[in-house]
């Protein structure tokens, strides 16, 4: 039976993972775009992304475009698997029979 992932279960991190797993396997999303879409501050997003990176669920790539720094975020295979297991665990909770 799939288990809930305590790292992913946090509301902001759940939304981060929900977003990045929709991309193609080698596709990355810009940090600023993610921030706007999730409606969080730089610091808030940065802290949660750092946590997910430490867990090995996402990777960051920092680059320069027109001499301005840009950070791209991508889900790892491990992160995709962990997210899938977490979703399965949530679905299992809904479908399990209520205790009498």
């Amino acid at each position, binding site marked *: 039976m799939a288990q*809930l992932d305590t790292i992913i*279960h946090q*509301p902001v991190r759940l939304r981060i993972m*929900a977003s990045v797993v929709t991309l193609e396997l080698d596709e*990355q999303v810009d940090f600023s775009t993610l921030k706007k879409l999730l409606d969080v501050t730089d610091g808030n997003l940065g802290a949660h992304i750092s946590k997910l990176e430490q867990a090995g669920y996402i990777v960051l790539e920092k680059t320069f475009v*027109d001499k301005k720094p840009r950070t791209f975020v991508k889900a790892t295979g491990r992160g995709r698997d962990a997210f899938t297991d977490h979703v399965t665990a949530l679905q299992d*909770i809904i479908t399990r029979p209520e205790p009498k």
Partner: protein
Amino acid sequence: MNVTSEEAQAGLDVIQETQNRFKKAIASGYTSHLLILWGLIGFFGFTSLQISPYWGGLFYACLDIVGIILTILIARHWPTRSASQGDTSQQMKRIWPALLIYALIWAWILKPSDPMQACVYVCTVCGFVYVLIGILCRVPFMFWLGNIITLLILVGYYGLPTYFYAWTALFGGGTVLGTGLYIRRWR
């Protein structure tokens, strides 16, 4: 971790809503900027052709050069990219062979031999590019936009040849511009 079924359902709802918003926003990305840019270029370009085919053609060529430069600048700030391809999308590379085949077959059928036919040819090929982007990049509105533009161009060419340029300015450029303004709200 104890999670009730209501909390689990709320979590799944958040995931669904987040993914829907994310996909829409990424699909529109800076596409809205490009559609607004080329919609304006199409509108003013074809309007100038209707007024004066010679000077309008020169004006339109200048607008196209400006459009290409701005398109390159916009593309450098795209919100997503393929890690293995740098800033170039895998899906976009698959467009070229299909586009080449379409362009050759359509040129053989249409046989553009005057400026108006050349306009029809270029506009319908652009429409096909939108259709391909819609299919390969899974962006439904681009698929429909491409088909609608192609249909409107052909209606204008065969139905209103005297006012073809004005028709294309309004319904070709205008449709592209309107779509860009509409999807801008998704960001």
